[in-house]
């Protein structure tokens, strides 16, 4: 709790700093709106923002769960089969420096301009950190625990599920944390560059529209939501999982 309080204090300092800058007159208020305007815009658009946020989250949900599945599959196979491990590491070497935006044209070509492209971008950006962390996790399971598992007659899939998975939880959570941040970033970026369709579209599309209609307080309202969601997921959901697992068990990554 004390930690949350201190974080709040810092957030308040940042907000005050923003407000001072906005009122300083150094920047045109058109582009650097005071807090009041941002809040007003938030309250005006709250329904749309809510809808778009849920929409973004649903897209991320789909993409991220595919990523997680594929990452577990590949990392699991890579632990047991050397050639797969080589293949995955080469693919990662090639794909990691590629900005997700650079693959937009190919995504468009293969998946069309709809949600599927955005989901593809989300998968593309979250897959590599997930694989890397899960694979690392699997490889750093204490040898003794693995052998205890084998001594108990576990092998293959069973050993994976009952020993390797819980034993690599700290790394898996790190992977989820980074993967989530990247998925969220990718979904917003994809919609901002790439646009989305009017009826549908997530918070990135909201930002995009507000920017093009020069409703800058609205754009900042969207940014605020992105930040808040990021903090919520990080500090509430992931922190909750951590507190009830690896922190409770004192497992270190």
């Amino acid at each position, binding site marked *: 709790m004390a930690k949350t309080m201190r974080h709040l204090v810092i957030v308040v300092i940042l907000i005050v700093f923003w407000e001072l800058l906005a009122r300083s007159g150094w920047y045109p208020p058109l582009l650097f709106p005071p807090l009041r305007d941002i809040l007003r815009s938030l309250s005006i658009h709250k329904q749309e923002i809510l809808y778009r946020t849920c929409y973004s989250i649903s897209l991320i949900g789909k993409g991220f769960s595919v990523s997680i599945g594929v990452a577990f599959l590949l990392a699991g196979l890579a632990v047991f089969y050397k050639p797969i491990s080589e293949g995955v590491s080469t693919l990662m070497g090639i794909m990691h420096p590629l900005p997700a935006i650079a693959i937009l044209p190919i995504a468009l070509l293969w998946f*069309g301009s*709809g949600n599927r492209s955005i989901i593809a971008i989300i998968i593309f950006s979250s897959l590599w950190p997930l694989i890397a962390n899960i694979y690392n996790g699997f490889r750093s399971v204490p040898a003794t625990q693995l052998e205890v598992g084998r001594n108990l007659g576990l092998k293959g899939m069973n050993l994976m599920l009952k020993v390797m998975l819980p034993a690599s939880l700290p790394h898996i959570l790190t992977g989820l944390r980074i993967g989530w941040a990247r998925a969220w970033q990718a979904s917003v970026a994809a919609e901002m*560059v790439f646009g*989305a*369709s009017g*009826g549908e579209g997530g918070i990135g599309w909201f930002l*995009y529209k507000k920017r*093009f209609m020069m*409703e800058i307080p609205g754009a900042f309202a969207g940014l605020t939501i992105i930040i808040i969601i990021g903090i919520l997921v990080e500090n509430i959901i992931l922190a909750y999982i951590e507190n009830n697992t690896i922190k409770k068990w004192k497992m270190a990554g």
Partner: protein
Amino acid sequence: KGKGETADQISPGEKGYKIRIAEQFGLVYAPLMIAREKGFFEKYGLDVEWKRFGSGGAAREALASGDLDAAFMGIPPFLIGWDKGVPAKVALGYVVSPVSLVTYNPEIRSIKDLKPGYKIALPSPGSVQHILLSMAAERELGDPRALDDLLVALPHPDGAAAMIAKKDIHAHFTTPPYLFEELSQPGYVEILKGTEAFGGEFSFNVGLVTLKYHDENPQGYAAFIQGVNEAIAWINLNKREAAKILSPKFNLPEDKLYKYMTWEGMNYTTATYGLLEFAEFMKKTGYIGRLPKDLSEVAYENVLAVIGKREGGQ
């Protein structure tokens, strides 16, 4: 007014006015590229700092932040900015260009056929294409926002790629060279031309100058107008040579570029068409919140002089 007069009196050879101009990329910006290549601005004493932007949105924000003195964009995006207080006015017309809604789907022959489930790509909300589509929707479907739920915002190249791949996108409201590229594919047809939607000719792009620059650098302003004027005049007289100069810039064969530049409906001109019509429509349909009381609110004296001649003193 007096300032318009001084503009005409600038003689070649003077030096030293700084100006920051947005350099954008595309066929419609050909005159600007010619002016740069042939030094038309320098000729009138301008010292140009070129700034590149990936989108009209970014250029508009730069105008607002005082980071830029002059930029080119469509009338609707300008009006949206004006409505929100971007301190700039129209300094000159720039180009009249074909802009059309293209489809490859044989079941779509007019916008009435665009039922839910189809998707129409255009560059961004609030763009010329978006407003034109609204105008057509109002006229033919009775509701300017009837098609809004079908829109997909895609940058031109991505839109064209999606059209050619026939993935998800069924129609694309686009400009040259994508328009030409798409129409040269078998089975791709125009179902709505910009002029039909608008009901006449309109400036596809206009030149904007910030109030601050206009007021503080009348000579620079005049030189800028002169430079663009001369570039446009030169291009209209020397299309062949212009194609030759610009072909390496666009990485296009000279012939192809020449064909594009002389396409029917492509017209580089400093006259401004359609300013008020756009404003009225956008006010009526809620894209902007106010209407200029008087054209002088959105355009400088030299534009008013021309419009006064062409549009009967509105």
